[in-house]
């Protein structure tokens, strides 16, 4: 019986790994290194989110007060820096822009961002935020190498500066760079984002390194925003598992005790 299970299991494993080695998403994504316990990073991300995203996008399932509480932002700071004066701190994070206007200006209503990190995954968000480039042929003057012809303009160009698309490398090749291969040769002012090579033509307020860090902060905040419970659940989980180990051990001893009757 045991051998039977082992044989079947082994076969399933072999087949599934050999036949389906390739797979997954087709996009070449950069890996974001988030630290969800770094409250300072999450706070910086929250500030970027409110200043650069919330004017067009909403986060309509999330409340200011909850964000402030989870990220250790004092109430006065929340009211002064993150909220509009008419709002209560327990209000949902709605955008100030009416949806109809937005649709007229951009062609589509900007999507709600509360759950974007669960729909798209953090690596996508991180790559997307850094992949805007100048493109005169597009109506907004901007394009995105990860999300071609996106209606959204580059909201943070004053921070990042203006970059132009120089070329693209093979997607599979780009996907392997993080793991074990070196990237292509790049000039001083060039940068690889996903599978796209960009050239910085006009520097912004931040250096490329600073901007990447800022986008890491923003991505971390969006990851938090998509599931606020993640900050607590792992802690509760550790205690729950420790308790269950104790309980299961007791049950095991109890079973052994009773089963001494059975021969």
């Amino acid at each position, binding site marked *: *019986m045991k051998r*039977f299970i082992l*044989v*079947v299991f082994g*076969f*399933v494993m072999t*087949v*599934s790994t050999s*036949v*389906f080695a390739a*797979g997954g998403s087709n996009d070449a994504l950069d890996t974001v290194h988030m630290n969800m316990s770094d409250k300072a990073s999450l706070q910086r991300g929250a500030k970027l989110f409110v200043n650069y995203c919330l004017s067009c996008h909403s986060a*309509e*399932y*999330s*409340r200011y007060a*909850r964000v402030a509480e989870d990220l250790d932002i004092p109430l006065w700071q929340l009211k002064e820096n993150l909220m509009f004066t008419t709002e209560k701190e327990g209000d949902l994070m709605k955008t100030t822009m009416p949806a109809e206007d937005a649709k007229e200006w951009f062609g589509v209503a900007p999507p709600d961002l*509360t*759950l974007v990190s*669960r*729909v*798209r*995954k953090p690596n996508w968000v991180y790559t997307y935020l850094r992949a805007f480039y100048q493109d005169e042929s597009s109506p907004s003057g901007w394009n995105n190498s990860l999300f071609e012809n996106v209606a959204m303009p580059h909201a943070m160009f004053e921070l990042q500066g203006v970059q132009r698309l120089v070329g693209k490398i093979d997607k599979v090749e780009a996907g392997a760079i993080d793991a074990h291969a070196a990237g292509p040769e790049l000039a001083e002012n060039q940068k690889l984002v996903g599978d796209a090579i960009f050239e910085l033509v006009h520097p912004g307020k931040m250096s490329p390194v600073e901007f990447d860090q800022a986008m890491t902060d923003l991505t971390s905040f969006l990851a938090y925003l*998509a*599931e*606020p*419970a993640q900050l607590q*659940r*792992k802690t*509760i*989980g*550790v205690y*729950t*598992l420790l308790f*269950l*180990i104790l*309980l*299961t051990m007791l*049950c*095991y001893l*109890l*079973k*052994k005790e*009773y*089963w001494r*009757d*059975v*021969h």
Partner: protein
Amino acid sequence: MAIHRHDDHKSANGFMEWVDRRMPVTKVWNEHLAEYIAPKNFNFWYYFGSLAILVLVIQLVTGIFLTMHYKPDAALAFASVEYIMRDVPFGWLVRYMHSTGASAFFVIIYMHMFRGIIYGSHREPRELVWLIGCVIFVALMAEAFMGYLLPWGNMSYWGAQVIISLFDVIPYFGPMLTEWIRGDFVVSDATLNRFFAFHVILLPLILVALVFLHLVALHQVGSNNPDGIDIYDNVDEHGKPLDGIPFHPYYTVKDLIGVGVFLMIYFGVIFFAPDLGGIFLEKDNFAPANSLQTPPDIVPLWYFTPFYSILRASTDTLLAFLGVASIAVGVLAAIFVKVKAPWRVAFVVTGLVAYWVFDNTTGKAWGVILMGLAIVCFFLLPWLDRSPVKSIRYRSLPFKIALAIFVVAFFILGYLGMNSPTPVKTLLAQVCTVIYFLFFFLMPWFTSIGKTKPLPERLTSAEH
């Protein structure tokens, strides 16, 4: 007026005596727990029955608490789930327990069914236990499917759209029927509202009733065991089986270990990986339902994927194969089966008719039929299995090989169903579909050949 007791079970004390005269509490306790005699060699596979009841209870309790906050309204449903995840104190925990519980339920049920197959628990005299169990499996699939619409995410929406559209293939009545099921021309608020009613009231009631009947039937015939022999063949002078022990306390304490280990895995998922990498909670379901945009990879949750693969595998290639195969089977039967000449002609004619049918029908209709048949096959198991022994420990080699191939095919079908189809994958799914049905179709044959091992006198390997 005097009350006459109809049993001779001894009440524990005066109070229980008072109760027992009016309601057979001690009698039921004894007959189903304290004096329910179970074989003493239950192993790993026997934990899943009690675990299934545990998960049913978890689902009922968490479901009730979710219902307190959820809104079955197309305009509010998605937001109300996020409300539960954020604004309700510990709502996220209740919701994750319910979503993880759904997957856990199917893991347990599949293990429980596999246990039945390897130890012959579907065999005489437990056919009804098995049949009721199969109905529970179908009811559980309906329950899970309807529950999956409720978060009103985009995958909920399109999943429901696809599955309801399956009924379109029914000749003449199909389109009318699908409109009736949805209550609209597309999946809509009306659909959501009625699925909510079925999910929280109708199907839970049916499930609980079926589980009760499952246990009533089991306790009528007694539990099978890993040796597949009857423990009542060896009894002491009082008629008690020598290899039997009372379920309580021995199996209640043993099952507690199973509960402990299960809860560790269950809460491990809930607290550390509630999405389980998109398998338990699909990423497209975190976007609200959008009737204008289908998600790029539309796949059902993992527990439906083996059957979904069979549905998708049904293309003209598969039908052509089935057509040719039916002629081949007809001809082979005509040559080798020892019957009179008219029967032989009938075999060939049947094969030709089958070929004609396969050649003149569409893959869509057959996908639905095959998917349905794939589930119906489980119901037929007690009568397809002709082996003289029940347990895999004593079965012949052909059965073991066939079962191993079937399990592998089932896993591959499950895996393929989680991925978007490519030509190679579709072909593989077709091969596995054929294997799936061959397992059941050929079972009367491969269970009756080969050499079985001799059955032991008494239960073996009481490992504890």
